[in-house]
Structure formats: C-alpha cells, structure tokens
C-alpha cells in the first residue's frame, strides 16, 4: 500500500453524526454543573499587578506626605523653643545690665531698728 493511498482510505470513513437528543442532553447537563463563574478581577494577573502597583504608588505618596508634614512641625516646635530660650536669656541679661548700671548700696551694719548703709551713688558726688 502506497503512502498516498492512506489519505483516500481515511476520507472514505463515514462522517459520524451526533445522536438524536444530543443538544438537549448537553443543555440539561448544564444544571448539574457548578455555576459558571464570571472571571473575577483577582483572577486576572495583569489587573492584579496593576492594582497592586497603583496602590503601592499611592501609599508611598501618602507616607511621604505625612512624613514631611511631621518634620515641619518638629522643626517649628524646635524653633519656637529656641526663640523662647533666647527671649528668656535676653530678659535676664537686661535685668543684669540694669542692675549693673545702678550704683551699689553698701550695707555697713545696723540693728533691729536701723540699717546703716552707704549709697555710693551719693558718695561719688560727695567731697571729703
């Protein structure tokens, strides 16, 4: 038998047809099958990946925004603290300077009723 004789032999085979009632049996068997599931988003790998990437970007942006806001608040608080310290120090220095600018009063002694002091500011002007 030649090789090419196989082809006609195969094509001579009678074409089979579905038996009567085939379609009805197939449709009827749909009821016994599990319900057809519509493709869920999470079954689409590309969609899942895209959603995850987007979420990551949004989350990163949110974290950065929060982080930078806190940093500014911290810096502002520190600045206010430093300013307060400077003002306090300025006041104390002013008082000290004021006190230094006034002539001193020297305490010489005294008792319960009288205190003997020398007001040097007056002493400066005195002629001894």
């Amino acid at each position, binding site marked *: 038998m030649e090789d090419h004789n196989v082809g006609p032999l*195969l094509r001579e085979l009678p074409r*089979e047809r*579905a038996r009567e009632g*085939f379609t009805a049996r197939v449709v009827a*068997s*749909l009821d016994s099958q599990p319900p*057809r599931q519509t493709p869920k988003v999470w079954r689409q790998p590309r969609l899942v990946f895209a959603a995850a990437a987007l979420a990551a970007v949004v989350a990163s942006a949110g974290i950065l925004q929060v982080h930078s806001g806190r940093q500014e608040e911290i810096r502002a608080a520190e600045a206010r603290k430093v300013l307060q310290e400077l003002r306090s120090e300025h006041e104390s220095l002013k008082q000290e300077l004021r006190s230094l600018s006034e002539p001193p009063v020297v305490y010489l002694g005294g008792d319960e009723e009288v205190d003997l002091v020398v007001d040097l500011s007056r002493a400066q002007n005195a002629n001894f």
Partner: protein
Amino acid sequence: MDAMIMSDAVVQASPGSPDVDAGLMDRVRSGDRDAFADLVDHHKDAVVNYLTRLTGNRDRAEDLAQETFLRLFRSAGSYTEQGLLRAYLFRIATNLVRSEERRERRLKLLLPFLGGWHPAGHSEPTAPSGLLRRELHREVSSAVAQLPLRYRVPLVLHEIEGWTYADIARELGCREGTVKSRIHRGRLHLKERLAPYWNGGTAWKTTT
C-alpha cells in the same frame, strides 16, 4: 479525484460563519442557553466526528463531545474571538482525549493489581462479516485511534477534517514542516497496521 475529495472535505470542514458564532458566544456569555443550544446544534456533528476519529469509539466520542460543549459554556466568559470557534472546540476535544489517555496509561500500570479490568477503548477486530467495506472502515478507524496522539491529531485534521498544513500548524503551535512530518509518520504507522488487510493476510481475530 483526490483533489475533489479534498475540496469536498474542505467544504465540509469549513467552520460556521465567524460572525454568527461570535454573536452567539456573546449571548452565551450572558447565560443565554438558547444561544448555547444553537452553537451545539451547529457544531455537534463535527465535534462528534472528530472525536470518533481520535478515539475509535463512538460512545466515548459522544461522551467527550458532551463534555467539550460543557467546557465551552463554562469558559465562555474568558473566551476571546481569536480564531474560529470550531478550532477552539477541537482544541478542547483534543485536550480531553489527551487527559483521558494519560489517565488510562496510569491505570494500566495498576492492571496487574486490578485483575480482569480492561480499559474502555478500541474494539478488537471481529471475524469477517458480509460487508467488507464496513469492516475495513472499522479497522481503519481502530488503527487511527491507536496512533500516538501527536500523529493522530494532525492526520485527522488534515485527512479527515480537511485542514491545511498552515491551519494545523497555527492551531498546534508548531511549524508546517513539523505538521507534515507528523502526518507522514502517521501514514507510515497506518500502513504497517493495515498492511495485512491489503495483502489478504489473516489478521482477523475471532471472539471467544
């Protein structure tokens, strides 16, 4: 003559109108069972015939054809019109046959332990009946069904369904040269198996 037979086979094998199938599949996706029934009506004979040639067993082919259409319905939501619906059905059918034969091969390994179990499959040639042509058809069908699947599928698609080498290559995801090679090897296998019948040999077996 051969060319006429081939062209007839091609015409017979021509799938349904893609537009009609696409419209019906749209409706099937939304659960329209009438549309699904129409699709089944349109393609059932082709699928049953294809599976009968692949399996060599008419009853098994009908069961597998039913499963093929059920799988089409279940996968309708993810089906995209990338080609002809009939090709998609044939692909499902081929995969079903492949899966079943793998199962049978595994079960055969257990055969010594099962004792008396015989896998459903190809019929043994019986004593010659009065209608030799019908007997020859049975032998040819059985011989085809016993080919390795990688030769059987392209051979059936080309010789029986009338597909071109290009169509088969595209469907199987291989080169045309590979398709031609497999078809040639399939023919050689058939030649060997059917030679006794052509040479008037005594390959008939009697049932006991």
